[in-house]
């Protein structure tokens, strides 16, 4: 009887746990705390945080329970991540929720979205400098785009063994936008620059909004066909919304579909952070390089905004450059709040959203370009 009891005990999580599981469970709790108490990106941090808890419950290997064990339920759910299915579905919903009118009203702001992608390429060099393999370096670099689904998509294609750390890093930095971006914005701009008011954008017609996704998908995907799974779905979702004739589909895409994909994406990514797989020197390197990538992306956008002002008659507020990363709408909100601190009547939110939208397109193109380098 004691033997049976001892055998049972030896198969419990309490018996099998080691310090790595404890650390990761602690990290999961932090995610849940940030998501629920601080409301930092709760839609992402809550499923990821809970996934980290579930993924780090120790179990007896070989029972077909864990996410890395073939034929386990979690393994099947994880299939959507490793094949890039969930990111594409998320992009469909994202497109159905995005209003490109502010971008169409001021197309020059798209350049800030392009400039913010420089963080990706600086980080690519940085990752290679620290000895990562080229495909790993490209996957780490895409964190600079500050786009979780894009990071997961590219990593699934180039370095699937790094999905966990890269996804966690990407979503962590997206959640930490209010902590990371404001100091960089303030450091790189003068008060005078932060006070620059942006003119209201012109009114955009419905026809323009309908034509935009068609033109954009053709232009972007002819340039980088490897970005099709992301941009194709993004602009499909946007066309569903703007066409106005398939409201049922648009509503489903922007609610049930994206919500379902987000739950499974976040949860399985969280589950993939099993302590023994996740806590490696590489993961720490990825976290460090991810923060560098995000910071450089923010700085690139702000600096490019300042450079544009050298040539433009009508100056733009360089804070908007920080919204060129594709963390929608976090970075636009942060730009808006930073502007409001200097002048409570200066509203930059809609202009920031324009940069954000171009950042989404830019980072997806970057993912396509990086992938194509290794085909």
């Amino acid at each position: 009887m004691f033997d049976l009891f001892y055998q049972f005990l030896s198969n419990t999580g309490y018996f099998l746990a080691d310090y790595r599981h404890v650390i990761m469970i602690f990290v999961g709790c932090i995610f849940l705390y940030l998501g629920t108490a601080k409301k930092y990106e709760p839609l992402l941090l809550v499923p990821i945080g809970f996934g980290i808890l579930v993924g780090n419950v120790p179990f007896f290997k070989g029972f077909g329970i864990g996410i890395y064990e073939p034929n386990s339920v979690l393994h099947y759910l994880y299939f959507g991540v490793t094949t890039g299915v969930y990111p594409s579905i998320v992009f469909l919903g994202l497109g159905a929720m995005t209003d490109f009118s502010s971008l169409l009203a001021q197309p020059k702001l798209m350049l800030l979205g392009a400039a913010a992608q420089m963080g990706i390429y600086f980080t690519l060099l940085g990752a290679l400098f620290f000895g990562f393999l080229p495909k790993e370096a490209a996957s780490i670099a895409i964190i600079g785009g500050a786009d979780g689904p894009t990071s997961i998509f590219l990593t699934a294609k180039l370095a699937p063994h790094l999905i966990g750390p890269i996804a966690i890093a990407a979503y962590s930095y997206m959640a930490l936008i209010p902590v990371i971006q404001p100091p960089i914005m303030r450091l790189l701009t003068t008060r005078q620059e932060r006070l620059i008011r942006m003119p209201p954008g012109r009114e955009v017609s419905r026809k323009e909004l309908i034509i935009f996704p068609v033109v954009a998908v053709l232009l972007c995907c002819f340039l980088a066909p490897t970005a099709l799974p992301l941009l194709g779905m993004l602009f499909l979702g946007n066309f569903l919304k703007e066409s106005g004739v398939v409201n049922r589909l648009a509503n489903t895409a922007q609610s049930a579909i994206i919500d379902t994909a987000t739950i499974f994406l976040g949860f399985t990514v969280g589950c993939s952070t099993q302590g023994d797989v996740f806590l490696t020197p590489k993961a720490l390197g990825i976290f460090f390089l991810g923060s560098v990538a995000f910071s450089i992306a923010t700085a690139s956008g702000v600096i490019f905004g300042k450079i544009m002002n050298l040539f433009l008659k009508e100056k733009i507020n360089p804070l908007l450059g920080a919204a060129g990363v594709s963390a929608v709408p976090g970075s636009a909100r942060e730009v808006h709040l930073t502007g409001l601190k200097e002048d409570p009547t200066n509203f930059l939110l809609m202009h920031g959203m324009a940069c954000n939208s171009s950042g989404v397109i830019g980072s997806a193109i970057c993912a396509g370009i990086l992938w194509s380098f290794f085909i």
Partner: protein
Amino acid sequence: MFGFENITANNGWAMAVVGASIVFLGLVVLSFVISQVHKILDLWEQRDEFLNRYKKQAQIEEPKPIKAPVSRQHHLPTVKELASIYRPLVEQLKQPFNLIQLFEISNKMDLAHPHLSIKYLQEAGVLVPQGDGTFTWDKQKAN
């Protein structure tokens, strides 16, 4: 391998420069195109007005068409009148005669529309073809 050596060995510099250039180029082109969309749409929506204006302008500039002279129905005399006019001419000719001879005489006499007149006479059976290119005068039909 670490450091710049690793970057160079893995073509990192080229990937960074080319990648950054492509994404920049792509978004610059896209921003240019979307900045022109509303102008193209405006043109498209005003196409009727534009076409009407163009048509009006074209009408003003277009030279008035030269009207072809309305062919008047020549007021030819009746067959009987023609026969009375042409009988004296035919009498000057030997039977049978060529129409050319009749035409030459009518020209000399300065008769109006000799071609049409001879044609009517022929159609009315006053001038009777002999089958060898010569004609005779039918006195009965001429009366």
